């Protein structure tokens, strides 16, 4: 038995970049996921996550519509539907549903969506993860991390307090005054962290406006880079602050 899917007008139908081939099964014009004529599953091709859902590279995204498309495509691409299909179609289904899941997971979350777009724009985001911290520890090197300029003073102050807390803990009791200072610094950082979302939304608007303009006219590369770099800067600050909060929490818990 072979699973055949009828084309569904609710699904994104598009031609993947550079692909103008015909359907492998009926020879008619193919669409991205299913042949527009016979409905058969088409080969999995390398694609970016926005194209997979036939979306423009914009950051404001209707997540309810994305979810709907995800469910609709799941019902047609999932390997469960191809258990008795040909080996070839089974392989495509596996490949395509992994692309679908990866794409949905990445796009539905605002931060990972932004990170992904920046990656498509050629940005290699700095690794500020816990893994990087561990790696540095293992090698006995200080963590290679650039302190965002606007935070320099605050971070300097915070590190002194953390140092003091550790010292006082070593002596026996944690100094309540230092603990109070750290709690205050922490809530200040958390406040800052919360404010980043609004800032990011602002850049999204700028980016999306650029994309719309680009559809009509040539946009100078510098403009594109300016918005891009602001977002990179924001994401770096964001992960830096998150790590600071984590460090403070760890120090307080110890």
């Amino acid at each position, binding site marked *: *038995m072979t*699973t055949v899917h009828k084309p569904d007008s609710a699904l994104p139908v598009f031609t993947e970049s550079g692909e103008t081939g015909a359907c492998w099964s009926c020879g008619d014009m193919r669409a991205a996921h299913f042949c527009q004529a016979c409905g058969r599953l088409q080969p999995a091709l390398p694609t970016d996550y926005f194209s997979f859902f036939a979306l423009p590279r914009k950051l404001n995204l209707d997540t309810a519509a994305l979810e709907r498309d995800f*469910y609709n495509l*799941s*019902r047609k691409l*999932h*390997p*469960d539907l191809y*258990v*008795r299909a040909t080996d070839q179609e089974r392989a495509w289904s*596996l*490949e395509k*549903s*992994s*692309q679908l*899941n*990866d794409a*949905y*997971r990445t796009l539905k979350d605002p931060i990972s969506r932004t990170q992904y777009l920046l990656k498509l724009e050629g940005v290699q985001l700095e690794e500020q993860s*816990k*893994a990087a911290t*561990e*790696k540095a520890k*293992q*090698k006995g090197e200080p963590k290679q991390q650039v302190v965002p300029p606007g935070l320099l003073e605050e971070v300097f102050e915070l590190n002194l307090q953390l140092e003091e807390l550790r010292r006082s803990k070593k002596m026996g009791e944690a100094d309540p005054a230092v603990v109070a200072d750290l709690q205050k610094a922490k809530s200040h950082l958390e406040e800052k962290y919360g404010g980043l979302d609004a800032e990011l939304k602002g850049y999204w608007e700028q980016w999306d406006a650029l994309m719309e303009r680009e559809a009509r006219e040539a946009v100078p590369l510098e403009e594109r880079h300016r918005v891009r770099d602001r977002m990179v800067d924001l994401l770096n600050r964001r992960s830096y602050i998150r790590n600071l909060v984590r460090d403070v929490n760890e120090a307080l818990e110890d």
Partner: protein
Amino acid sequence: MERIVGIDLGTTNSLVAYMEGSRPVVIPGEDGSNLVPSVVALDERGEILVGNAARRYLIETPERAVYSIKRLMGRGIEDIQDELRLFPFRLAPDLKPGEVLRIRLGDREFTPPEISAFILRQLKRNAERHFGAPVSQAVITVPAYFNDAQRQATKDAGRIAGLEVLRLVNEPTAASLAYGLDQKREGTVAVYDLGGGTFDISILRLHEGIFEVLATNGDTHLGGDDLDNLLLTIALDDIRGDLGLDLRRNPEAVQAIRKAVIEAKIELSAKEEARIELELPQGKKYEREITRRQFEGLIQPILGRTVGPCKQALKDAGFQPGAVKEVALVGGSTRIPKVRTLVQELFQREPHSELNPDEVVALGAAVQAQILAGGSQATQDMLLLDVTPLSLGIEALGGVVAKIILRNSTIPASATEHFTTGVEGQANVAIHVVQGERELAKDCRSLARFDLKGIPPMPAGLPRIEVKFLIDANGILHVSAREQRSGKEAEIQVKPSYGLTDEQVESMILDSFDYAEEDFRQRQLIEARNETETILAALEKGRKSPAWEQLTRDERKKIEKLQKALREVAQGEEYKPIRDGLEALNQATLRLAELMMDSAVSTALKGKTMETADLGEGPAAPHPIAPAEIIKK
């Protein structure tokens, strides 16, 4: 089309089920029981026994039997030290770290997948007997928290048993399918699954037939077994203290005590008090009363271990405990009243347990089997979207893990990583893949080491090897690699850290042909019984036809005698007597068949069709009693 069955391969009991119309049902074994105890024994004649037949050996000759083998699936000797203290597993003496385990059974040795295959083979047989037709494809359930190696081992077990495993389904997810089948539920559901040896918690979102797992967590070594071991340890200490009898090295006595405490445990789910009474060696006797309160106090630390995973799963799914709409209880251990209260407090919901907690996983597996078979009215629009329970990572510099696919990602899921060389002309790159949440590779589960070979000679750092990691819908990892500058498909040599290699599985399949003989015998028996039914039914018809009266009295008597004899032998388990009985009855009814043929033809000449002449079948099979081959003679 051949039926696909759903199998729950459990730590304590295993079941096989299928969809009968719109309803999943469990297929009972020969003894009429739905549960096949997951016990395998090797009898004195070297034959393998499974289930209730094997259970006897646990007490009488424990060195010939093994239970709870699921605990050892996909594991190495270095990570089962706890198990070895608590379970009477007899390992092969020459095992080395990193090697697949081998368990001694009598004078022979088997790997955990082979032992599981014996259980699967029994279930397969039960299903074939039930259908009267061969079964070769199955959906098998695994604990949601099983890692790659444990899943692979389960799949290998299926292959060794002669089953194509079309899908591994997570147990709590399977249970949700069974629960979701009747009522079209919508909203979020938590499934709390405490079985014989494993614990899982899954949080799902049900939406228009899609069962989307949002988060899962668990402990693959936490279950009813642990409660049994706790009670057993207490009893052994009691006996040593009060009676001065150290029975720890007496396997027969240990098994007898184990059986007694399990019975007490079960009793305490229904009663407030249970009593253990046991005859011991040296004419001594162990007597003890235990109240439910005491029991609950004792098991609290073990049950408490399920709380952490539940909280983590809720957090990962982004829920407050009270936000989950419904909670379902799965697994035999959820019969313990204390477990119910714990779940109720944790989720602030009265938990569901309408479906038999021992059977619900197998029933769900049958539903998934139906979905894979192309669906039916009952399963229309049902689709399962499951997740990977553990993060997948690569060991990076300094032994830290770079995570590439995070836990609770919907599967299939993939990640692409790029690697390069560190030395000029380097031809190989080694990659270590691990699974787990810890930061250091040594604290995670080692899955496999890959060697990327045949990299074209280039200066250090120039080759760009793209490696694709893909977790399929079974939760099993696949890896492929390509050197991008040369466009060459890099050769990958996969060395699974704990699993069997393909060659090993193949050779086990060959070994299992010994047991396949038993399957063949079973199949012959099924076919013979089917033919018996056909001929007896046809004979009943024949006896009502005018041709019956045309036979001599002796002929009729002979036929009646053979008919009776065949009916009797068909009840037995031996294939040969049934075959002989069939042959004899076929011969004896030859003339009856001819007479019926003649009358049919003459009726047909009178203008009636063959069909109305009550031949039952069309001209292709002119005689309903004797199969076509006899007519040819």
